[in-house]
């Protein structure tokens, strides 16, 4: 099979890398696709044997040859004639004495002298044997031949050409043999003539003659009904004839004697077939077939059937299937099943002849069916036939059936494999693969073009490589794929083609649908294979396995590149990255997608550890281990000169993981650390590991970047930007700070202070100039000035004594009340500058105040300038449990990448390398502090403020140390000394101690602070600057185009301290004030954010002040009694004394001028929504308020004697004072004093207490109706008199007050001035503008006799 060995490495030409070449399919013949079939067919024909049931290989004529040099050629011929062999041929059982004898006299041209004699001799022969004789003259003259060398080759080629066609194997064996060395071309011509003469003159006439004779002999059988009747009669009645004609052969088949009519008929048909009278032959065959069938001579019947089919095919090309296919099918079936073993050969002959005829007629659609009648037991032959069948599927006229092709190619491959023809099996399987691949992935084939171009340049050897590239591809038919890959792999192993085999096995393992048992087997085989192959190449090329490039790409385990994370400085806590530090105190957020268009998204500093986290998952159901897992990286140095030096010192270090064990289906996270030493761009290109400690695998990690969508082309065909997720930049200028949180507590008692610190160490080689700190809950933290430290011992020390020292400044000179001017700006104070400089002048003229306020970089009192390398910076932070509950506090440090010491502005704080920490803090309750407000009866100016303090701790006594109130208007004085409780022992008289679960109340009276009352300021701006500021700013914000920019003016706060303990705490002049105001700011911001969600954060500072004039903030300092000297404070801010201050609605009234015109409906809508929301808010939250309060004071009592001794009644003078709480409005009021007798008429039932008993015993006298007006914060008094019939205590708090606010000038103006209808009318006015008030509580006076 030398021909086969050449072809078996190549696939059939129609399978190209681009897919199935339909042109080749349509034009090519099948034969060259499998040359071994052609050889087989020829060999088969050569070795055909005669069979007794047909006359095909039986002799028709016999040639007897005599030489002319013979003296008596006739005698010699006669002697030959009587030779036993000739006799046997002549009297052959099938030939039946009808073999033609042909006599040939051969003359050698060398005997020139005998020319006359030859004619004579030939005459003798002719006379003796008649027509069937001829004379052949050939030359054997040596001189003649040698004269023309060219001629000699020509002669030889006549034979060798012929041989190579008819007997290719023999021809190959005798390739160098020279045929006809003594002949010339003339002799060849003579030989051809002689043969032709013999055929034309003798053989054909002889056969024609035979046909005529036989036709006569069998005529009656072929003619219609009579013949049939005759034959039937003979069969049934002439028993003797039957016995003579049928014979049973040795193998058990029935056949006929040569002189039986059936045999004669067959012979007649055969002869006429040979002479191309197919129509006649077919009719005779059909008759004979019928006879054979009736005689149950199945072999003969099958032969006749076969010939009928052949005749039909020879006659009619376009015959329908039923006409010939059934004949062949019948014939093959008969040969196979009704006859004995040798007839398999005949059956196969039928199939092959049929197939060849079909091919000749291009009736391919019948061919597979025909070919596949071959039983599968035939081994290699079956493979051969299946392969041919597969090819015929491709030649189907309408479209090539690739899937059928691959199926039968697979069958063929299996048959070849069984009969151990590995090369052919491999070829078949490979064709299946390619066919499957091309039919499945037609679309992806275009991208393979480049590979092909490259491989052609490298010559034919690379053809295999391109095949291997296809291995990775797969159809989705998993078991087909795995079967084919496995078979191919095994074949490759058997031919020691290890590289290819490895590829196939890897493709096998990539499939996760394979059952576990098979997977384990495949894995085992793969490892075994690798060991074998490395053994085999060890002697020759040792470097093949050690070279990193040759490490294989294997699909197991799966590494998802998109899940890969790059983490800088993995040992440190917190979330690292470049964060965008936003303005307005929002949390710094990671920059999601890099807008800076650098190659690497991430940066790290030189020498910094970078952890790469990879998600590795095992798709198999069996466990595997990965050893020496490491990463391959590509490093591009920034500095061109440096790249040459890389050889000596590596630019980076990659750690490796010794062993990763993956169970079946398990997913594991592997962390690899890279330490870069040079500046540049580092990209991770792949992972390297040893699979099961044996197989070196290289796995490329590649990700497509963002899908580009900029141009039309990019939208049509998906294009991706280069990915940056798997790379990072090594930047020497990149700040690298190590940040540690020291001594941060897990739990805190609510209100208590705890000292912690943030330790920042500069690890980079450059000083770091700008460092900022951000805190999520600014009310939880008090950041103090940072200090540099060189040793860690200081930190520990300060951590140990983390009590309240330093937080609270104790002083003995705490004033009871003092007024301090403080800033009233609502700052965002979640961001602190630790290092760096802020601009000295906070407001540059060009910048509007609002922006500056919103930026709000809060600068600590003493920020350091820069942090040099290896220096440590400690930022002390006080943490206070501000609210009870579990909190997640976030803390972020940021270092800007700016090199020089620049002045920090908003821009430099945009992007900083940051580290974000989450701190979990649980705050447990300690004290619960509630405030409540009562009106004071004694004095209408005053309010009673009660503070209820409850100790929530189960087992701790808490001492109250100090209370501090701050307000812009009120001064608070304790109503009684603490020891009036009687709770305290004599030892601690001054202190207030609250036991577990105890509650105490502290009462204070709030009265206007002296200076605030004394100044008789009439303008409301002076009385309540913050409120007026808000009204104006809000009005401008709503109605004007220009948003307000000015910040609120400072406010004079009255601090009222009540020292309960031994020493007071200075919270006015110490840094505590800063913290308290910051936490107040954060609280107030949250409040405002919730109340006015439609106002953006950045406008809050210019709209609302930090303190309202009439609000009261309360701070309660306490310390624990017992071992731990914990102390803390609680605060309540914005205590509302119930005075009317829903002033905000006033801002909703449009101003007289400067209303921005809104052309767009949307803008108008927006404004209206804003107004509505503010109005809703203020009506919703405000409780019922009393703008005026009335107090009644008894002046004197006089008894009036009417006539008798006993006093008839008493007269009492009372002062009735009406006080205006409002700072905004002057009120007109009508006061009606009501006598108890009239009460049912005037006072609505249910308003007051029950007036039974002595009620009717007294009455007002004089005028009871007073019309007056009262200025803001002013009061009016009325003297009234009442008469009482008897002495005793009576309730005289009976009055009705009708109040109407006096319209201020601006309001009346605004109401009247609006000529055109606007969306806003003045419906948003204070609701206290008109109301009726009734007494809230009784007012008892003692009317006593003198």
């Amino acid at each position, binding site marked *: 099979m030398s021909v086969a060995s050449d072809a078996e490495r190549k696939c059939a030409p129609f399978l190209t890398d681009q897919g199935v070449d339909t042109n080749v399919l349509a034009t090519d013949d099948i034969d060259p696709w499998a040359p071994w079939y052609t050889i087989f067919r020829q060999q088969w024909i050569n070795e055909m044997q005669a069979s007794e049931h047909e006359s095909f290989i039986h002799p028709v004529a016999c040639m007897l040859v005599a030489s002319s040099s013979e003296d008596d050629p006739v005698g010699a011929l006669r002697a030959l004639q009587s030779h036993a062999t000739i006799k046997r041929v002549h009297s052959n059982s099938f030939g039946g004495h009808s073999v033609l004898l042909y006599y040939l006299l051969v003359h050698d041209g060398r005997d020139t002298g005998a020319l006359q004699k030859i004619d004579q001799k030939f005459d003798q022969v002719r006379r003796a044997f008649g027509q069937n004789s001829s004379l052949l003259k050939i030359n054997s003259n040596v001189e003649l031949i040698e004269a023309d060398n060219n001629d000699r080759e020509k002669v030889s080629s006549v034979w060798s050409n012929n041989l190579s066609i008819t007997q290719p194997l023999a021809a190959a064996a005798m390739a160098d043999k020279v045929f006809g060395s003594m002949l010339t071309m003339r002799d060849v011509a003579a030989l051809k003539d002689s043969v032709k003469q013999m055929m034309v003159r003798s053989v054909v006439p002889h056969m024609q003659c035979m046909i005529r004779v036989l036709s006569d002999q069998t005529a009656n059988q072929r003619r219609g009904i009579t013949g049939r009747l005759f034959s039937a009669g003979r069969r049934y009645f002439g028993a003797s004839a039957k016995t003579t004609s049928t014979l049973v052969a040795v193998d058990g088949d029935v056949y006929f004697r040569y002189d039986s009519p059936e045999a004669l008929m067959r012979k007649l048909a055969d002869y006429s077939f040979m002479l191309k009278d197919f129509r006649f032959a077919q009719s005779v065959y059909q008759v004979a077939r019928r006879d054979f069938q009736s005689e149950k001579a199945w072999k003969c019947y099958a032969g006749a059937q076969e010939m009928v089919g052949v005749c039909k095919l020879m006659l009619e090309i376009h015959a329908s299937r039923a006409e010939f296919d059934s004949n062949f099918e019948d014939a093959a079936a008969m040969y196979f099943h009704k006859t004995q073993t040798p007839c398999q050969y005949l059956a196969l002959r039928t199939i092959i002849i049929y197939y060849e005829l079909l091919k000749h007629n291009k009736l391919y659609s019948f061919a597979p069916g025909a070919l596949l009648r071959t039983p599968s037991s035939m081994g290699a032959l079956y493979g051969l036939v299946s392969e041919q069948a597969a090819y015929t*599927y491709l030649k189907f006229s309408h479209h090539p*059936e690739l*899937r059928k092709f691959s*199926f039968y190619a697979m069958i063929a491959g299996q048959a070849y494999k069984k009969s151990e023809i590995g090369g052919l099996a491999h070829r078949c399987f490979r064709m299946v693969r390619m066919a499957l691949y091309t039919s*499945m992935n037609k679309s992806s084939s275009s991208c393979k073009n480049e590979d092909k171009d490259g491989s052609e340049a490298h010559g034919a050897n690379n053809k295999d490589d391109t095949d291997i590239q296809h291995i990775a591809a797969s159809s989705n*038919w998993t078991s087909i794929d795995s079967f084919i890959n496995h078979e191919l792999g095994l074949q490759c192993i058997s031919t020691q083609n290890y590289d290819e085999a490895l590829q196939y096995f890897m493709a096998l393992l990539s499939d996760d649908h394979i059952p576990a048992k*098979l997977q384990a087997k495949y894995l085992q085989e793969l490892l075994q294979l690798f060991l074998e192959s490395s053994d085999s190449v060890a002697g020759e090329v040792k470097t093949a396995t050690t070279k990193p490039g040759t490490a294989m790409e294997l699909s197991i385990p799966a590494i998802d590149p998109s899940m890969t994370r790059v983490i800088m400085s993995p040992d440190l806590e917190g979330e690292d990255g470049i964060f965008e530090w936003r303005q307005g105190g929002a949390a710094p957020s990671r920059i999601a997608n890099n807008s800076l268009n650098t190659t690497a998204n991430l940066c790290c500093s030189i020498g910094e550890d970078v952890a790469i986290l990879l998600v590795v998952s095992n798709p198999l159901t069996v466990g595997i281990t990965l050893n020496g897992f490491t990463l391959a990286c590509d490093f591009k140095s920034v500095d061109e000169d440096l790249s040459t030096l890389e050889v000596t010192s590596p630019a980076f270090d990659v750690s490796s993981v010794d062993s990763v064990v993956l169970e079946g289906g398990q997913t594991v996270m592997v962390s690899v650390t890279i330490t870069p030493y040079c500046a540049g761009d580092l990209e991770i290109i792949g992972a390297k590991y040893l699979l099961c400690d044996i197989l070196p695998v290289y796995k490329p990690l590649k990700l497509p970047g963002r899908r580009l969508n900029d141009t039309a082309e990019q939208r049509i065909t998906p294009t991706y930007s280069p990915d940056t997720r798997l790379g990072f930049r090594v930047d020497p200028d990149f700040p690298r700070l190590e940040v540690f949180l020291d001594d941060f507590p897990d739990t805190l008692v609510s209100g208590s202070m705890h000292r912690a610190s943030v330790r920042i160490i500069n690890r980079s080689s450059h000083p770091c100039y700008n460092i900022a700190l951000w805190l999520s809950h600014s009310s939880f933290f008090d950041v103090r000035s940072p200090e540099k430290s060189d040793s860690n011992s200081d930190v520990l020390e300060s951590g140990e004594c983390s009590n309240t020292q330093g937080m609270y400044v104790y002083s003995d000179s705490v004033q009871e009340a003092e007024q301090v001017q403080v800033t009233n700006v609502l700052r965002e104070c979640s961001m602190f500058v630790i290092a760096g400089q802020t601009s000295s002048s906070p407001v540059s003229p060009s910048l509007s105040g609002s922006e500056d306020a919103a930026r709000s970089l809060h600068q600590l009192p003493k920020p350091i300038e820069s942090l040099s390398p290896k220096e440590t910076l400690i930022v002390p932070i006080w943490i206070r449990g501000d609210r009870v509950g579990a909190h997640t506090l976030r803390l972020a440090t940021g270092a800007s990448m700016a090199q020089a010491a620049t002045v920090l502005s908003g821009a430099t704080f945009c992007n900083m390398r940051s580290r974000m920490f989450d701190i979990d803090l649980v705050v447990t309750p300690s004290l619960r502090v509630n405030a409540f407000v009562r009106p004071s009866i004694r004095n209408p100016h005053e309010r009673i403020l009660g503070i209820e303090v409850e100790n929530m701790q189960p087992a701790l006594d808490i001492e109250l140390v100090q209370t501090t109130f701050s307000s812009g208007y009120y001064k608070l004085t304790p109503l009684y000394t603490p020891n009036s409780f009687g709770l305290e022992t004599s030892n601690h008289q001054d202190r207030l101690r609250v036991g577990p679960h105890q509650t105490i109340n502290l009462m204070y009276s709030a009265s206007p602070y002296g200076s605030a009352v004394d100044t008789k300021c009439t303008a409301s701006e002076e009385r309540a600057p913050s409120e007026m500021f808000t009204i104006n700013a809000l009005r401008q914000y709503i109605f004007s185009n220009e948003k307000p920019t000015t910040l609120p003016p400072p406010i004079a706060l009255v601090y009222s301290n009540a020292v309960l303990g031994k020493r007071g705490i200075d919270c006015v002049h110490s840094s505590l004030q800063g913290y308290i105001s910051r936490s107040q700011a954060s609280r107030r911001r949250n409040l405002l954010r919730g109340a006015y969600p439609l106002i953006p954060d950045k406008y809050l500072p210019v709209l609302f002040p930090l303190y309202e004039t009439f609000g009261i903030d309360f701070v309660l300092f306490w310390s624990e009694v017992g071992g731990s000297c914990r102390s803390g404070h609680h605060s309540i801010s914005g205590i509302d004394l119930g005075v009317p201050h829903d002033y905000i609605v006033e801002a909703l009234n449009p101003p007289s001028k400067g209303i921005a015109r809104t052309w767009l409906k949307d803008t108008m809508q927006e404004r209206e929504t804003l107004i509505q929301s503010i109005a809703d808010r203020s009506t919703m939250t405000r409780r019922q308020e009393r703008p005026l309060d009335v107090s009644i004071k008894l002046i004197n009592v006089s008894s009036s004697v009417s006539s008798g001794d006993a006093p008839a009644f008493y007269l009492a003078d009372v002062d009735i004072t009406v006080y205006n709480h409002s700072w905004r409005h002057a009120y007109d009021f009508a006061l009606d004093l009501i006598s108890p007798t009239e009460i049912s008429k005037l006072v609505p039932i249910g308003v007051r207490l029950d007036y039974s008993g002595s009620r009717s015993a007294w009455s007002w006298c004089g005028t009871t109706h007073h019309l007056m007006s009262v200025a803001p914060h002013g009061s009016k008094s009325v003297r009234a008199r009442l008469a009482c019939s008897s002495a005793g205590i009576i309730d005289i708090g009976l009055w009705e007050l009708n109040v109407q606010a006096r319209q201020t000038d601006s309001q009346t103006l605004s109401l009247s001035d609006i000529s055109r209808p606007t969306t806003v009318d003045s419906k948003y006015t204070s609701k206290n503008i008109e109301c009726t008030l009734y007494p809230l509580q009784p007012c008892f006076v003692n009317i006593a006799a003198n």
Partner: protein
Amino acid sequence: MSTTYYFAIVGATDSPLYEAEFGIHRAENTHLHQFVVHAALDLVEDALFLTNACYLKTVDKYNDWNVSAYVTPSNVRLMLLHEARSEDSIRSFFTDCHEFYIKTLMNPFYEPNSPILSQAFDTKINTLAKKYLL
């Protein structure tokens, strides 16, 4: 019954969306089942033009195995490899399978012509096979 059934839903892109084996089957035959069904796809294309019905009856046979096919309007082919010939039950099996396939298709999270991984679908098909085939 000792017969083998192999059922596959082949998407319009010629890749199997769902495969199942019912009855008795041997592991070494799985690839042959796939091969036979895969090869029969060629004949389905021919058989499509001969009838209006979705159910194409037996389109191919290999030795003892018959392959019946059912083509949905979206050119998704339900292929069943079976030994016994029982046209009616196979027809109803196919019809019901088609219904389930349509229900799967209506799932907004299911991408047409992607493998069907739903457990519920698998259970339903197995129930159908028990009902009609086994």
